[in-house]
């Protein structure tokens, strides 16, 4: 069995009196492509943001590489937390490219300032990554001059630039025009084929079915059902899963 990368036990997240996550248990193994699906407001994005502690859970445990990093509170110092975050690339629904920096500066900001790589190496690595996402010609473009699909591909390259062990995608195509979705999914598909560990929250069911090694269905803050794409999409066991799939497929 592959190494366990992330382990989550009994995770709860409460906003005011709204329970967003209820006793979620969930592991990620190296090389897996875990796809999380479910209706809006089911807690998928919150779960994803808890993985790299962008949001702090209310209670529960999170381990990374068998090291307990959260146990009802964050166990890491600021610098350790920042270090853990550089192991996980995060891709946002709204891209969140830095508006004051060009594409190259977006990619090299963390490698140079956080990972302390030398500038030339960081630039060369970034050029390589931009080639990978098909944007070699946009290295010195400004984010505002890019289409949505290009922005998201830059955002993926930026997340890859810190050399993460796992990539987390939070509805990466939800903010895109239909004609821009394909190019982003293509980049993600290639990434999955290269063996990258990925956790993807998405509404793209066909893509989930094709690319996922495991699919998780969430509803109302709970993991309702999980399994292989074939199990979950073709032979769902739970009533709620069937109802959701009937509505979206």
């Amino acid at each position, binding site marked *: 069995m592959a190494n366990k990368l992330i382990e989550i036990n009994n995770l709860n997240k409460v906003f005011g009196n709204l329970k967003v996550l209820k006793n979620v248990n969930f592991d990620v193994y190296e090389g897996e492509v875990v796809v999380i699906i479910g209706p809006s407001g089911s807690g998928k994005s919150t779960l994803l943001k808890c993985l*790299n502690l*962008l949001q702090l859970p209310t209670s529960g445990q999170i381990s990374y590489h068998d090291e307990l990093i959260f146990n009802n509170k964050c166990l890491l110092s*600021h*610098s350790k937390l*920042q*270090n853990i*975050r*550089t192991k*996980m*690339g*995060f891709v*946002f629904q*709204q891209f*969140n*490219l*830095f*508006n*004051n*920096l060009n594409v190259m500066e977006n990619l090299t*900001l*963390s490698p140079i*300032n*956080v*990972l302390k790589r030398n500038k030339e190496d960081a630039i060369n690595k970034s050029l390589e990554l931009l080639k990978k996402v098909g944007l070699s010609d946009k290295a010195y473009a*400004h*984010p*505002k001059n890019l289409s949505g699909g290009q922005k998201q591909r830059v955002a993926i390259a*930026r*997340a890859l630039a*810190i050399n993460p062990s796992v990539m987390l995608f939070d509805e990466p195509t939800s903010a895109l025009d239909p004609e821009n979705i394909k190019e982003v999914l293509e980049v993600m598909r290639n990434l999955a084929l290269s063996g990258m560990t990925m956790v993807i929250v998405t509404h793209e069911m066909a893509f989930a079915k094709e690319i996922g090694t495991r699919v998780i269905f969430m509803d109302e803050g709970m993991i309702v059902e999980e399994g292989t794409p074939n199990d979950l999409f073709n032979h769902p066991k739970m009533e709620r899963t069937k109802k959701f799939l009937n509505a979206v497929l």
Partner: protein
Amino acid sequence: MGLDFSILQDYIGLFLQGLGMTLLISLITVLFGTIIGTPLALIRLSKSKVISIIATSYIEIIRGTPLLLQLYIFAYGIPLAFPFIRFSPFVAGIIALALNSSAYVAEIVRSGIQSIDEGQLEAAKSLGLSYALSMRKVIIPQAIKNVLPSLGNEFVTVVKESSIVSIVGIADLMKVTNTISSQKFRLFEALLFAALLYFIVTFTISKLVNYIERKLSVSHG
């Protein structure tokens, strides 16, 4: 009775000296106002309630009391109460103006920081940047750009309000104007000429800020 500006021509040099002093005081004020005001904005935005309240109180008290009163405190109040503290009028004037301006700059910078989409900070954090580094490299550059017009207005305000230091004897444009008019009994002409000088300066600053703003919006988003 007519106006006679010819009487002022012997005093052009003196007017310009006063104007130089006004510009010097304004520049130092804006410089220190920004140096104090920017961290003040960050402190006000701190998650720690206690720390935030300290900054908020400072800002509200400064903005809620007259600048003239603040000037008197530094020029007369403190030296009287603590005789071992000696300010020159120049230093007292600068301290009062800079502290006053810092409160307004803090509010301008705060609104600028709050206008930045939260996703920017979230993205910076996700890449392992510390809060301080995120602020320095991502948030503050965007915030400053957004509030540049307001900061320019603050500069204009400082140029005008700095005239208050003439009261404690600093030879700025206002003080020089008073002196000249009382010597020559040509108050109206001297005042109009000083107004012209003030206007040229503030108008130039406004245009300069507009220009920088346009340049920035061309090079960035």
